[in-house]
């Protein structure tokens, strides 16, 4: 008889853990609205089509690094014929703000902040912007 108490307790615990996300989201008032990303004012287009950038910007960055640093090929010709220097700070962050753009999306989907920032600088920090 005392076993039933333990078994039912364990079962209850399991159901609680299995439905944990619902409880936690209820507590934090989570909603499905994605964060508002601050888009650049002076540009309409990214360096590649939007669909590609959404899924593959990290791959693009690694390709850039590979060809710029290892293959001495520092210029990227975009799909629309424009050219960009293959640089994380100088190109991406000239249009995008790290905190208002990259970090917001990464925080929402729970992607870890890329380790690139261990070394690469966020220019907004230099301009004496908040922190």
């Amino acid at each position: 008889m005392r076993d039933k108490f333990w078994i039912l307790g364990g079962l209850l615990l399991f159901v609680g853990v299995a439905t944990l996300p619902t409880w936690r989201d209820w507590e934090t008032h989570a909603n499905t609205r994605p964060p508002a990303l601050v888009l650049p004012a002076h540009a309409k287009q990214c360096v590649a089509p939007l669909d590609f950038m959404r899924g593959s910007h990290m791959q693009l960055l690694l390709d850039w690094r590979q060809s710029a640093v290892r293959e001495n090929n520092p210029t990227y010709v975009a799909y629309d014929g424009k050219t960009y220097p293959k640089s994380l700070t100088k190109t991406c962050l000239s249009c995008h703000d790290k905190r208002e753009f990259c970090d917001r999306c990464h925080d929402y989907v729970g992607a870890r902040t890329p380790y690139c920032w261990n070394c690469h600088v966020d220019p907004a920090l230099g301009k004496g912007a908040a922190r």
Partner: protein
Amino acid sequence: MKALVPLAAILGVAGLAYAGGLLPGTRALLGVVLPYAAMGIFLIGFSFRVVRWAWSALPFHIPTTCGQQKSLGWIRSNPIENPNHKAGVAARMALEILLFRSLFRNSQARLEEEGPRLLYAENKWLWLGALAFHWSLLVVLVRHLRYFLSPVPAFLPALDAVDGFLQIGAPQLFVTDAVIVAALLYLLARRFANGRVRYLSLPGDFFALFLLLGIAITGILMRYFTKVDLEGIKQLALGLVTFSPLVPASVGPLFFVHLTFASLLLAYFPFSKLMHMGGIFLSPTRNLANDSRARRHVNPWDYPVKVHTYQEWEEEFHDKIASAGLPLEKERTRA
């Protein structure tokens, strides 16, 4: 045949789900109705089976005893392999659940050509494969919490960092992604390669393996190769657990295959051998202390049986026995 039918079933489901992900009409069915139904079946079915186990009688006290029992003080006992109290049982269960102690004990009999002679050898491969699979699965499941929680708690990115410590590619290769596929392929190959295991395998065994492989492979395809709109998927997942479901248009058909497989796994779970997840806690051979001599175990199925003892029988036929000249127990004891 035992493997082909489950494989065909899995491939069929994949095809249907892919097509369903392309058609606007079925996207809500696959993305909302199916996951809810699967979770419902999982929670109710799982609870039902555990409750039924809890209510079944335990007629015998049957712990496995693989070590020296506690007896006289000068005989060294093995309190974990042959526990005589609750703490030992807890240690044994922990070893079993976290480290698969009984698989580690696995040994294999083999007939050696020369002689011929029978050889018993330890075989740790099954243990290693099972351990690699289950722990990877746990890490993968925990990592998936990031799609269901908002804001994402800090320990999840930290776990990602540990899992991606090789820093290969972007998005970073997760070690558990590679390990879980390797382990599943080993567990599958084992069922084909070893004749005895092949004979013992049931379609259900193959079905579970193919299904898990399907889930892992579609997940890996999406993360590293075909790419998906993770923002849309997070909206979908968050919508499900906060009961405000939506299916963003940007979510591709491959994701629906992944989601359908996962739902199928949940719905199939309570009806399958996968219930060993709950069952392992309730295995009497493992979770009972070997104290059957120190403590009386009463069979709950025992009911007062009407017995007719020899004494009563002798009493009843006393005269007949005496007249036949047969010895009487009563007189013998008196004498």
